[in-house]
């Protein structure tokens, strides 16, 4: 057990799964010798050779298609899409093809592939390299969607995603790549279905994922000083979504806030809020609150970008309002 970077955890998961199963292959732009734009696949071409690591042309649709076709025939491809914004170029293969093939074939074919996508801003990366588009994929039956927040989860979930028989969209938030965390020497693949309480609390539940978890934890520290006890629940798996986990937390707290970097409107926070309002209404003592990016494209200027994006301060403020508001009501 030693602390490693989030990015390293991804590399380790790929490496270990490639060692375990020769059907695990990688496809993506610049992922060969150069090791990808973010160095994730560094060394893997040398280690596993050209029939395992495919450095592709800049052709997102063909890349996903190549993974899909290979997966139907027994490969376990892992695609790297450099930024999730570029998934816009491969939506047909992801949504109309990969997501549906098992169903449309009446169970005769399946597409065990993973699409790794970087998401979120890297600081002034502006309109086309900063989005967080995970909500789109959660709307598509047939896809699973994973969004880890720690190196240990990144590793365990990626291993699980690779072994999973269905297409899994695997989100990696850029801003987490350099964060460190303990990762056990032997990591078992996670079950792709469970959220996790990462901090216990009694006044409100903050359901967050990826960087949002870290922001929520920071906020929880600050709130504690105010006497507000925030539980932080790491969603981790968006599809399947851990309803029982959410319910258990709301049973303790009765208040819900969602946090993600994606735009709030029609973001996955809406789905979480709707689930709560629909299935856990009796547990809610206060309005649900959503914290996320305001609905604008990503501006280039740092101070505009930080206005747009969710922050620890906004989480803290919202939590205060939320807890305060209930007191008014009660």
């Amino acid at each position, binding site marked *: 057990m030693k602390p490693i970077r989030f990015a390293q955890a991804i590399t380790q998961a790929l490496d270990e799964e490639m060692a375990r199963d020769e059907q695990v292959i990688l496809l993506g732009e610049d992922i060969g010798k150069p090791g990808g734009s973010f160095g994730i696949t560094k060394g893997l071409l040398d280690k596993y050779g050209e029939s395992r690591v495919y450095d592709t042309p800049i052709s997102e*649709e*063909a890349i996903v*298609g190549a993974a899909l076709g290979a997966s139907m*025939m027994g490969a376990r491809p892992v695609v790297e899409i450099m930024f999730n914004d570029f998934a816009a170029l491969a939506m047909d293969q992801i949504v109309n093809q990969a997501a549906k093939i098992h169903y449309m074939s009446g169970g005769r074919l399946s597409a065990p592939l993973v699409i790794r996508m970087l998401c979120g801003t890297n600081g002034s990366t502006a309109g086309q390299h900063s989005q967080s588009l995970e909500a789109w994929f959660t709307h598509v039956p047939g896809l699973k969607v994973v969004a880890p927040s720690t190196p240990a989860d990144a590793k365990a979930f990626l291993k699980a995603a690779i072994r999973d028989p269905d297409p899994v969209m695997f989100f990696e938030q850029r801003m987490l790549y350099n964060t460190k965390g303990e990762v056990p020497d032997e990591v078992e693949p996670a079950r792709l279905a469970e959220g996790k309480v990462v901090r216990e609390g009694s006044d409100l539940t903050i359901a967050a994922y990826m960087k949002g978890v870290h922001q929520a934890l920071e906020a929880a520290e600050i709130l504690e000083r105010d006497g507000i006890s925030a539980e932080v629940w790491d969603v981790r798996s968006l599809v399947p979504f851990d309803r029982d986990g959410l319910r258990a937390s709301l049973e303790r707290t009765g208040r819900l806030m969602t946090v993600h970097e994606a735009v709030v409107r029609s973001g996955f926070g809406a789905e979480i809020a709707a689930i709560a309002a629909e299935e856990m209404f009796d547990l809610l003592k206060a309005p649900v609150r959503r914290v996320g990016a305001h609905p604008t494209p990503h501006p280039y200027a740092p101070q505009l970008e930080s206005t747009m994006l969710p922050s620890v301060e906004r989480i803290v403020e919202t939590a205060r309002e939320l807890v305060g508001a209930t007191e008014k009501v009660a």
Partner: protein
Amino acid sequence: MTTAVDGRLDQETLVGLFERMLLIRRFEERASEYRLAGHIPGFLHPCIGQEAAAVGTCAALGPDDVILSTHRGHGHMLARGADPGRMYAELYARVEGYNRSKGGSLHMIDTDLGFLGANGIVGGGIPIAGGAALQQKRRGQGGVAVSFFGDGAANQGAFHEVLNLCSLWKLPAIFVCENNLYGEFTAQSEQSPVADVADRAAAYAMPGVIADGNDVLDVREKVAQAVARARAGEGPTLVECKTYRHRGHYEGDMCAYRPEGELEQWLERDPLVTFPARLVSEFGVPEEEIEAVRAQVEQRLDEAAEFAAAGTFADPAETFEHVYVDSIEGKALR
């Protein structure tokens, strides 16, 4: 009965090609009747007129090869040897269908035949074929992947990306363009300034070949060369089959967009007329054998239709199956 004819194909094989083409023709004609009679919901895109391209191509393939098809895919699947009964059953929305009535005409799939799917997205199968070719190469057993697509699909971005990628990696892929002169109701000449799709192969440093898409032997020959090239590790080939669909784009289309006389000209080259004639005159197949094939095909399709009609409808609970391979608690994930 199995005398070698042109040095490669014996009479039995030749008659077999005719039988397959006729099976497709009659399958489609009947499907259109069954649809009119209310047995088949959804879309139908008949491939009547294009049988030689489907049969010629599949005749050049082996059992380990795989196929990706299109919205006009019944012919490809039958040419590959599919059971018309299970196909009708799928169209009739019965669980006995190839895909338990979940796919229908646009999404028919049979893994046993390496038939990896019709496709409702124009050009949508091409990238998948690229991936199948990649895995064929990784397997190293000489298998190829065939991608059927239309002239219209050749203007989709996917076509470009995949041909580039497959040529770059020398993948064993065969791109079979069925150029039937139309995409829906619009002539190919109004969709591209390039009349011969095969001319696009050069942009990917791959051979581009034109076949007479109404001549099953020519198609078979050209595709066989492409397959040999692919199996030898030399990479993909683009084979363009010049052909024509006799019917509308889908059942119900009145073909108002066709210039007068065009259909008539193509009907003269109808493979279901010309090929049996050649079998008799050129290859010495007795007329009676042709007639026997006709009778067999009708009988087979009678049985197929009966099989379909006798099939059962899926239980509504099946709606929630097959969303995921390991559906949590057997239900669709919410």
